[in-house]
């Protein structure tokens, strides 16, 4: 009897250890995966880093024939499209988050609006690109003809518009969450002093939720910077420095999508260099956003307890 139970304990011990080992292994695997991604990008970009160094970011020629590569046009393209998209989307996403977080917390209106935003977030980016190609592009071309610029239809403005539509759900859902976190007693105190709803929103809700709204905007920015397909289809793929918001350009993601499959040697290494930079930019933006959100949730849980 005793021997049997000893055997059983040993058996359990062994399974126990194996189980913890598997868990730790899977966890460690994720960290290794990330390090592997970083390492692979870095090692494969070395030829380009050695060749162009830091000047990669200020050189403005990207020419595969003469093997001179500078990423400035793509940096400018990425920054221009994502910030323009952010500018366009901010009023809309704040409007939606106020409507869902303050005016209609639950009920038919909010249920409808919330599922609509979810559907908007669930549509694949290639479909946004397809739609933009057949509806947005003629629209922009029409505007360009009216104001007398070369009517190409594709370019920075078109891509920014589609990006703005794509990132609204992200900043709106985070904005809604932080706006619902605003303590009721603060708002009630303002109401009891005779404030109108607009004044409560302007003086209580927005200042209180400001950092959360900014976190949502940061995460949306991260998505806009890394977005590939819709932008590739609408930006016009020109490797020259863009001159206006109507001119065709390329972002870091879209130049990789366009050229990587046929690239060899230094061209391929330069594209991987671009990918490395893109990776770092999104990491910084995302970690900043996640940090703000985490800090917020700690603060709000402290207030409850």
């Amino acid at each position, binding site marked *: 009897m005793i021997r049997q139970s000893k055997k059983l304990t040993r058996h359990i011990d062994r399974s*126990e250890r194996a189980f913890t080992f598997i868990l730790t292994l899977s966890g460690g695997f994720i960290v290794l995966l990330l390090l592997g*991604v970083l390492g692979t990008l870095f090692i494969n970009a070395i030829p380009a880093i050695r060749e162009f160094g830091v000047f990669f970011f200020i050189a403005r020629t990207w020419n595969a024939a003469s093997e001179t590569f500078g990423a400035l046009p793509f940096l400018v393209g990425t920054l221009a499209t994502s910030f323009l998209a952010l500018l366009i989307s901010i009023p809309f996403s704040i409007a939606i988050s106020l*409507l869902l977080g303050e005016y209609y917390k639950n009920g038919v209106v909010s249920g409808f609006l919330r599922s609509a935003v979810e559907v908007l977030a669930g*549509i694949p980016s290639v*479909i946004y690109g*397809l739609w933009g190609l057949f509806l947005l592009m003629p629209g922009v071309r029409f505007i360009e003809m009216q104001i007398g610029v070369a009517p190409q239809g594709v370019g920075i403005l078109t891509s920014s518009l589609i990006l703005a*539509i794509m990132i609204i759900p992200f900043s709106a859902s985070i904005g809604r969450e932080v706006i619902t976190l605003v303590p009721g007693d603060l708002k009630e105190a303002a109401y009891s002093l005779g404030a109108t709803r607009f004044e409560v929103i302007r003086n209580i809700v927005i200042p209180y939720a400001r950092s959360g709204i900014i976190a949502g905007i940061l995460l949306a920015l991260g998505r806009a910077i890394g977005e590939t*397909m819709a932008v590739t289809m609408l930006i016009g793929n020109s490797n020259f420095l863009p001159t206006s918001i109507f001119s065709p350009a390329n972002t870091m993601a879209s130049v990789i*999508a366009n050229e990587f499959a046929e690239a060899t040697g230094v061209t391929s290494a330069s*594209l991987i260099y671009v990918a490395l930079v893109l990776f770092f930019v999104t990491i910084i933006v995302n970690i900043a956003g996640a940090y703000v959100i985490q800090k917020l949730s700690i603060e709000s849980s402290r207030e409850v307890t």
Partner: protein
Amino acid sequence: MVNNIKARLVRDVFFKSAICLFAFISLLPLFLILYYITKNGIAVINWDFLTSLPRPIGETGGGVFNAIVGTLILIVLSSVLSIPCGIAAGIYLAENKTGRLSNSIRLSVIVLQGTPSIVIGIIAYLWIVGPLKSFSALSGGIALAIMMLPVIVKTTEETLKLVPYHLKEASLALGVPYYRTLLKVVLPSGMSGILTGILLSVARITGETAPLLFTAFGNQFMNINIFKPIDSLPYRIFYYAMSPYPEWHSFAWGASFVLVVLTLSLNLIARGISAKWKIQF
């Protein structure tokens, strides 16, 4: 004084209507997209479109059967690769709330989740396509698995954190070993949440094109060999949309309709599961 109050009230009403107007305008694109997909998609979709292979330009007819099969194969591949590891890592995080490894895993999950899909495509290319010297369904599956992994880890962790501690204590008090408690008590009670997470991540990768551009690549013939290039719905849409032929454009709309129905129903099922079997204690 009265005037002042009136002005404030007017401003209040004005603000509310402005908010409603902006929210309404931002929903317009959604309706336009859905309208265009349905209008142009329904026009080309029939039995033949769903069950035949693409034909060269000039021949009428043809369909996206190989793309549908390819997308399903890619989904199965990436799920098989990512779900076990993702759930195990999620359990680890839920069980070890602090510690150096947990913090590193959490940071890695955040970073991986924000990684642009095109970068993951390059990684899969360098890891699999380069050494094997051929585009393959396997490399596409691995790229998509890397995209699924962080979502699964995160939802597993969040769900398991919600499972009340007394369930675990009761099981441990009965003398059940720790690992059996986790596998037979904690994990089953969090199953609906984990399942929701898996479905949401599948819905997310179903529409991904960028990681497939230089991994699974696309193939106009039927293929079920995972070491050969394989077609997928998003890739087919991209290919058709960028082509100069109006007939292929209409095919792109048809394929989009199929893809949207697929991803939206995955989302709906996920939401249904989380609503129906919401953890109740």
